[in-house]
Structures are given as C-alpha cells and as structure tokens.
C-alpha cells in the first residue's frame, strides 16, 4: 500500500493515521455542534469566574516557564545536584571529560 513504512515488526502508514484522526475530529465537531451556542461574546458570560474576585492583571496569571516541572526537578534533586555542576562552563573541565572519555573507551576496547 502507498505510504507503508516497514519498521521491522510491522508497518506505519501516515495516510491511515490521518484518515482515522480526521474521522475522530469529524465526530468531535459533530458533538460540539450539538452544544449551546447562545452566549454573548465579550460580556460577563465569557469572563473567568474567580469566586467573585476581580480578575488579576494578564501578566500575573500567565504561567511562566520557571513555574513548570519544578516537581520533576525537585523529585530528582539528587540527580540534578550532581549533573548540573558538571556543566561548569570551564573549558578545562570540558577537556578533562574528553581525556577521561578517551581513556575509558581505550581501556574498554583493549580489554573486551
């Protein structure tokens, strides 16, 4: 079939995938069409409801990059505490890693 990429165990066909996705989107659109459309844009109906409080400034509600995945990095604190200092920005360290790499690979290749 046109578009079949043989991947070893099976195949991948993006055209089939697109047809399936398009069908799914069509159903989603049909369901959306059944929804309530009688609201007025730009009125109280479309404003976020924050328990009666005023909406804060836009710049305050945007979730910045630094707010994301802090839990992930916190959970792996031990890992990051060791990994980040290795990226010291010092060229001498970079070249030391090069030398270490050369030695380790040479020993591995000679021994095994």
């Amino acid at each position, binding site marked *: 079939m*046109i*578009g*079949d*990429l*043989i*991947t*070893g*165990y*099976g195949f*991948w066909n*993006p*055209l089939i*995938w*697109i047809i399936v996705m398009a069908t799914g989107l069509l159903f989603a659109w049909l369901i959306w069409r059944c929804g309530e459309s009688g609201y007025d844009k730009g009125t109280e109906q479309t404003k976020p409801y924050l328990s009666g409080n005023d909406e804060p*400034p*836009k*710049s305050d*509600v*945007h*979730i*910045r*990059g*630094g707010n*994301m*995945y802090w839990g*992930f*990095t916190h959970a*792996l604190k031990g*890992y*990051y505490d060791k*990994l*980040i200092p*290795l*990226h010291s*920005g010092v*060229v001498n*360290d*970079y*070249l030391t*890693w*090069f030398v*270490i*790499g*050369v030695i380790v*690979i*040479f020993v*591995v*290749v*000679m021994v*095994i």
Partner: protein
Amino acid sequence: MNLLLDNLPALLIAVPLLGAFLVPVIGRFLPKIRDAWIILVSFLASLAAVITAAAVFLKGTLVYVFGAAAVSSAADSGGIPFRIIFTIDGFGAFMLLSAAIVSFAVVLYLVASQKERSGKSEFYALYLLLTAGIFGMVSTGDLFNFFVFLEINTLAGAALVSYHRKGGIAVEGAIKYLIVNTVGGLMVLFSIGLLYAQYNSLNMAFLASQMTWTTLNIVALVLFITALGMKAGAVPFHFATPDAYSVAPSGITAVMVVASQAGLYGLFRVLFTLYGGSINTVTIGWVIIILGILSMVIGVTMALPQKDIKRLLAYHAVSQTGYMLLGVGVAFAVLGDPAATAAFGQTAMEGGLFHIINHALYKGLLFLAVGAVIYRTGVWSLNKLGGLGHNMKWTMVFFLIGALAIAGIPPFNGFASKLMIYESVFAFNPALSIIAMVVSILTLASFMKVFHSVFMGPRLPEYENVKEVPKLMIAGMIILTIFVIGFGLVPDLVVDSIVSPAAAALLNQGSYITAVLGGGL
C-alpha cells in the same frame, strides 16, 4: 553543460568558496546587490549538492579526481592512489541533501534577520565558508582533506557564533567551541598521522582495504570516536555545544546542527568504511550505543529545567544526537552477524540515518522559530515570554510543527525515524528501546513547557505591539516545514529513495573500496 555536470563535485566546494571571497568585494562596491548575491550563491551551491546527490542515487558512487580524469597511482607505489579524490556514495549524497536544504532555507532567513546588523559582508563570507566546510567533509575520500574541511567548519562556525551578540557572552561561547573542537581536530589529525605512518596513504578506500586490528589502529579509532563524537555533541563530549548554540544567531545555530552532523558523518564513515569488519564490532558498537544512551538521557534531562529558550533547544540537539548514535550503534554491533543485520540491524541503521536528516530539518525549524521570537522581543528567558501566539501566529504554527516532530508525534517526520529506531533496537535489546521512548516522552514534556510559556496565555502588555517577522524569515521556515511534513507523510518514499541507499553504502564497505580502487587491489 556537460562540463558543469562532469565537475559537480568540484563545484560543491568552488561555488561557496568563490561566493565567499567575492562577498566582501560586492559588499564594498555594490552593497545593494549583496543580499541577492548571497541568496544566489547559496542557491547554486545547494543546487549543485542536490544534483550531485541525485546523480549518486541514480548511478551509484561518484569518484572525482582533482587534476586527472581517473584514479591513478605511481608505478612503484603498490597501487596507492594519489591526488585528492572526492568519493560520494549514498551516505555522502544523503548528507549533502540534508545540508543543501537547511543551508538554503537559513540564507533566506538570515538576509531578513540580519538586515539591521553591521559587518554583513564578512558574516556572509563566513557562512559560505561554513557551507563549503560541511559539503567538503561529506564529499571527500581523502582523510587529510577531511581534516582540512573539518577545520574550516570549526573556524567558520566559531566565528559566526560570536558575530552578533553584545556583552561578550557570545565570544565566550565561541571560544569554548573553538578550543574544544580544535583539540578534537588535532586528535583527528593525530589519528590520520598514525594511519599514514603505517600505510603511506591518506585515501580512505585504500586505507580501508589495508586496515587491520593493531594497537596503533585502535588508538587512532578511539581518538576518531571521541573527537568526532565531540564535534557531533555526544555526551560526555557535549559541553561546549549548548554554550555555543545558545549564544549564536538563531539562523546560524540551525546550520551549526548540520555542521555537527558532519562530525557524525565522519564518525560513521570511519567506523563502517575505514575500519568496517576488521575490528571488534560488538564492543565498538556498544561503545557507540552507550554514548547514544548517555546523550539521550543527559541531553533531555538537562533541557527540562532550562530557562534560556535557546539553551534548552541546544540540550535537545544533544539528546537527539543520541537517537542517531543508538540506531547506528546497534547496526555496528551486529555488523558481523548477517542474520541479525538483515533482521533488525539494517532497519536500526536506516532509522538512525533517517533521524539525521529529520533532526536537521525540525531542529533547524525550531531554531528559526525561536530566533523569530527573539528577533521581535529580544528576550531569551522563558520566565519573561508569553502570549506571543496572539501576535506571531505563523511563528507559533512553525514552532508547534517542529515541536511535535522532535517529540515524535505522528504524522511528522520525527515519528517515522523514531519508530524505526524503537522497533529495531527493541529486537536487539528491549531496555534500550524503552529508554529511547521515555526520552521521547520527556522531550514532549519539555516542548509543551516551551510552547505554553512562549505562545500560550493572555496577550502580555509588554508584547502588545509585537509583530510577525518579515516574509523572508517566514519563507525560510516554510521551506523546512514543507520537508518536516512531507517526510512525515511519505516516509516510505524517503527511506526507499535516499535513506536505504545511504545505509547500504555504509553496510557495504567493499563497494566503496571497489568504486575508488577498482578490482585491482
């Protein structure tokens, strides 16, 4: 016309070199046509690369001897070929294609993004030198010539990294990149010296025909692996890569990805063509695999907590290099086992190579899209950006496509190559494949963060007046987007027409040797 076609391999180098040397002259006397000149030269160089690649895919390995009609050797030399010889097989042609697409797309982008900058003549001259260096590295069949092009690549790349950012931070990144890669280049030269001292030749095909498993050759191989791995940005030799990528002009970073991949080309060429089956492929294959796994895991985990948008992308470049090393490493580990090679080794190789061109395209696109954001806002920090999707819709769409592609989401090109890697590597060792999938999930998570923090959210007051970037910058991104989507929609055609010939060229060492030396040696 025939004269031009017959000398295409020479034009690959001559066009960008001549163009580079004339840019300052044109910039001095005819500054109004300088931009048109750089676009024309880049187009012609890319056209030469595409035609050369097409010729190789249609007719087979192309051997071009500088200064003679055919390969020749002195009567008493034992058949050692002399003169500089370009040997472009399926793998070289594949790399040429990748470099040609990205370098031309980036030129369009640069002409607009650098419009207000000073020193453009020298900047473009360096850019064309970098292009010549990349084309030369993937075309030459001579080891010393490879070293020369590697140095051109490094020097021009470092100069471009430092070119246009105030405050000295770019110069610092460039100097680190220069020092580290120059040391790597010297190690490559030392390795070449070790081989030359033993075999009296610098020709790769001749050396491949003579290669044996000696201690000197092992030393040379280890230095080749580490030095070219450093050029490619593989962990633990990757440290200078994010330092340089994060401070370079964004268009330049897109091409630096291809420049790094030329180092990867050198590594695979040395492994498969120069050494081939004469070495312990299982051990060396596992060394490459471990470098790949380290690159994937450390690259992506270092990317996740980054706040600097370009540094984050740079760590992802390291991570994606790991996929290529993993796929090709598995193929090398089973090179001595024809049954395993046929069952999954060749697919692993094809997946790894396919990922090279895919990565060049979507990472190039991502760097250009991020460059567009920086071009309009002047802000690198993810903590300060936000809501730009309201004002930069085209850039947002391009970034989203690149992000989905790098995360391996169908139907984009990254998914096709990753799937080939997952399935073939699973047959070799399931744990490696699972690690690759986990890294892909983390990549998606990382790009969700970037996409949300840069483009989503309410329109922020500080970016109220931000506009979309100029049309030429959009044009550069459109070219890459077309390939990212196209390669994802018809991956079978891409694999059959350019990836499989590249993998076959690497797997069949004998055909490379025969193409240059004939059956005489």
